[in-house]
């Protein structure tokens, strides 16, 4: 039986001892709690129209990736985040960095908009009703 479970035990024990992400060891923390907020990141043009990622950017640029990078930015800098209450200075700092990553290696000549705005949509539950608001994080003029 030991042969059939020693790797299971080794992987679990070492991952727990490390206690954080250290590839290939992980705590698999996805959805380990359900806080009363979630964020999604969207793009709009100067007219306030949605700019879909897939129609304008290379395939590795997407809403999910931006969300991961937003949390990585806050964790890396040890900034307090969540519940829609981040400091506006940090939000702008994060917005600038995310915008730079988004536009990296992109051909901006083919964009049919002059301004790109990055918003953070903040969802929360208020007495069993889902509410949201869009906060502007960063605005970038596009050079064609």
């Amino acid at each position, binding site marked *: 039986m030991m042969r059939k479970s020693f790797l*299971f035990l080794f992987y679990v024990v070492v991952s727990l001892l490390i206690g954080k*992400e250290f590839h290939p060891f992980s705590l698999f923390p*996805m959805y*380990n709690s359900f806080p009363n907020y979630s964020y999604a990141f969207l793009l709009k043009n100067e007219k306030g129209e949605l700019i879909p990622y897939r129609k304008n950017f290379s395939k590795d640029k997407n809403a999910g*990736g931006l969300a991961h990078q937003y949390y990585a930015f806050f964790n890396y800098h040890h900034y307090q985040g969540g519940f829609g209450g981040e400091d506006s200075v940090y939000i702008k700092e994060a917005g600038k960095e995310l915008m730079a990553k988004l536009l990296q290696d992109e051909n901006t000549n083919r964009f049919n908009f002059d301004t790109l705005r990055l918003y953070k949509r903040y969802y929360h539950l208020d007495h069993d009703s889902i509410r949201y608001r869009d906060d502007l994080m960063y605005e970038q003029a596009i050079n064609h």
Partner: protein
Amino acid sequence: MSRLLTINTYSDTEWRFIKIPVAFFWLASIRSANINHELVPYPVGIFTFINGSFLASAHTVMVFFVCAIVLALLYIFEKWMTATTFFMFALSLVLFTLEESSGIFNRHSLYTAIFLSQAFAYYRNKPALSEERIQFPVQLIAGGYFLAAISKIRQSGFGWFTEAPLASIQMIKGYSYAYFNTGDVKQFEKGMKHANFILEHKLLAQSLLAVSLFLELFAWVSLKNKTTAFIYGLLLTAMHIGIWYFMNILIGSIFYPMIIFMVNPLYLMYAGLQRLVGLLKP
């Protein structure tokens, strides 16, 4: 089919139908690894000790991908397996750590660990190799699910599932991603519909979450034998389908290795087809 499952060994045919999809999904993960070129902005793992920027250039990543294609072919054609699986581990370790150091956590840990376990199985080269190259990965997959359960209990306690109404906020997020990526507003409407369903059926939502926590916590049951691995694989598949339906989220880097090693759907189709052909023969 039932007789095949009760025999606690794996045939070469079963192994063939495992390694082909493993190589395919691993290559797809390598190809789509979201790496911030020329920069390692949020170093994690091995790159907290060494500066990985020199490995992150677009050219280097392309060279890694070409190496990955060669390794995947060697893996499928069963060539120099100790070295092949070890280099697959090393390549995964570097590339996926680079991805995680770009702030993107696509949870590819299992692929990396699986190849190391297979290198170990081939290095041992025991008579039980045909079982160990499949059962060792099953142990790591079960470990991943068990760790996910422990993570939930440590963070939220055994009452994790009672927070089900708040899961609606996470559900709408998954569908929002789809809307913001494609511009298809129907995705957002679908997410709102599912989220409101959860709010209106709290007990059902809590029960489903409790079942998924139970499944993850007892994932080690799958290690008993081939039959338990198969049955557990089916249960976990049902769980993933439920998460995908309600939340529009499928964590492929965990789901694909699980279904391939525990259920082996390609082999099941092959065995079913063989049986059908046998029945149709005059």
